[in-house]
């Protein structure tokens, strides 16, 4: 203790230098895995898992109580929505097309029977406001590899960016650096999906690099696409990402970008599936 006290400035400076080198090394490798990280994640995983669940439960109770107050408002809103849906029924062609699209997406698993999926629990959200990354409780020993896609019941969640022995980090599509290849289902136009930095509770993502004369419109579905033709590619086609809410010009490029409401509710994410091919 006395040694540390006497040499504190030297130790602090040496450590700062060492950590700066670490930052350089780990940033170059685009990964933060290793024995030490493995030990820490294995040790803390059970506590994190339980605390995450506890937090979700308490949050659900608050959500339930607050939703009671909104019941009347919600009822009116739902009535309005039912009216809108009735009007939509008249537009038979549109409904038929959407129905076909949704069916193909919902039957993703059936039509891809050769795919191997494994279930996983979300155990933490890491990176705070800086990254939208979740930690799941399956890792290398379950066959998870970097680059594999993660889905939830109703859509795309993100991509595995780091794999530890029994846990993995998933960069969700809400992250600004996600860059997932995707296409607008109705027009087959390809773009890149990434997150949008927002302070709102309802996080959105966006698809960029759409052609300037794009035919995409509000309400169109966005799905993943495989631009790599290799068989070894881990990327899967036609996983629902979300619905376009708004389209605008992408400055300074001569392209358009569309904001997407994700199909998955990231605030309530507990169980996911990893496509391990």
């Amino acid at each position, binding site marked *: 203790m006395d040694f540390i006290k006497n040499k504190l400035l030297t130790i602090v400076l040496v450590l700062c230098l060492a950590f700066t080198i670490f930052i350089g090394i780990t940033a170059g490798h685009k990964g933060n895995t290793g024995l030490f990280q493995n030990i820490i994640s294995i040790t803390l995983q059970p506590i994190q898992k339980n605390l995450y669940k506890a937090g979700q439960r308490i*949050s659900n109770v608050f959500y339930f109580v607050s939703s009671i107050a909104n019941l009347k408002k919600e009822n009116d809103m739902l009535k309005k929505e039912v009216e809108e849906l009735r009007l939509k029924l008249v537009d038979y062609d549109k409904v038929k097309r959407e129905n076909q699209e949704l069916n193909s997406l919902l039957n993703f698993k059936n039509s891809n029977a050769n795919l191997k999926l494994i279930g996983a629990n979300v155990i933490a959200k890491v990176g705070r406001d800086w990254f939208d990354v979740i930690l799941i409780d399956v890792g290398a020993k379950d066959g998870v590899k970097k680059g594999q896609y993660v889905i939830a019941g109703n859509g795309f969640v993100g991509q595995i960016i780091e794999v530890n022995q029994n846990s993995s980090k998933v960069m969700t599509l809400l992250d600004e650096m996600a860059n997932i290849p995707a296409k607008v289902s109705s027009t087959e136009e390809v773009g890149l999906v990434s997150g949008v930095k927002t302070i709102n509770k309802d996080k959105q993502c966006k698809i960029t690099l759409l052609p300037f004369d794009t035919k995409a419109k509000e309400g169109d579905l966005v799905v993943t696409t495989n631009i790599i033709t290799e068989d070894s590619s881990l990327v899967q086609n036609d996983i629902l990402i979300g619905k376009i809410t708004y389209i605008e010009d992408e400055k300074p490029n001569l392209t358009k970008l569309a904001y997407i409401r994700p199909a998955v509710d990231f605030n309530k994410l507990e169980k996911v599936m990893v496509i391990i091919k």
Partner: protein
Amino acid sequence: MKRVFVFVVLGIFSVILQQAFLSSLIQNINFDLVLVFIICSSLLLDEAESFLVAFFTGIVFDSFLPYIFGVNSIVYVITAYLLALIQKKIYKEKTVILLFLTFTFTLFKYFIYFSSYYIASISIDFLSVLKQDFIIEVTLNMLVSKFLYNLLKGIIYSYLQKEWKF
């Protein structure tokens, strides 16, 4: 040594609390419990103790961060060192001093984060992060720091009082 052990455990617990419990309880949580913990503990412990607590907590926190390792460790170690240097020269019981220190070191954290991400060539829209997150985070950090400081002070005075050496 007992104080260091207890505070390191509390530090790791605050890391877990931050990313497993609070992140699922409050959506888009905007305060940095771990940084506030380091600030408060550094004001209460002596130089060597606060350095060790900051070092171990930083390493554990960094193990969970994607892409880069070491940013939080640098922030916490320097914060602990600077606070250990000045803590005997200021009247730390005054709330305004605690709030000012929390503000300053939250700003310092952003500075180190921005520098590190720049060095590591990670593209982050710094301006929008600063505009959207900083004001809310610093306000909440200041609020939390008052409660946490009193809590940690209570723990030290009740269980971890240093014995006088004559």
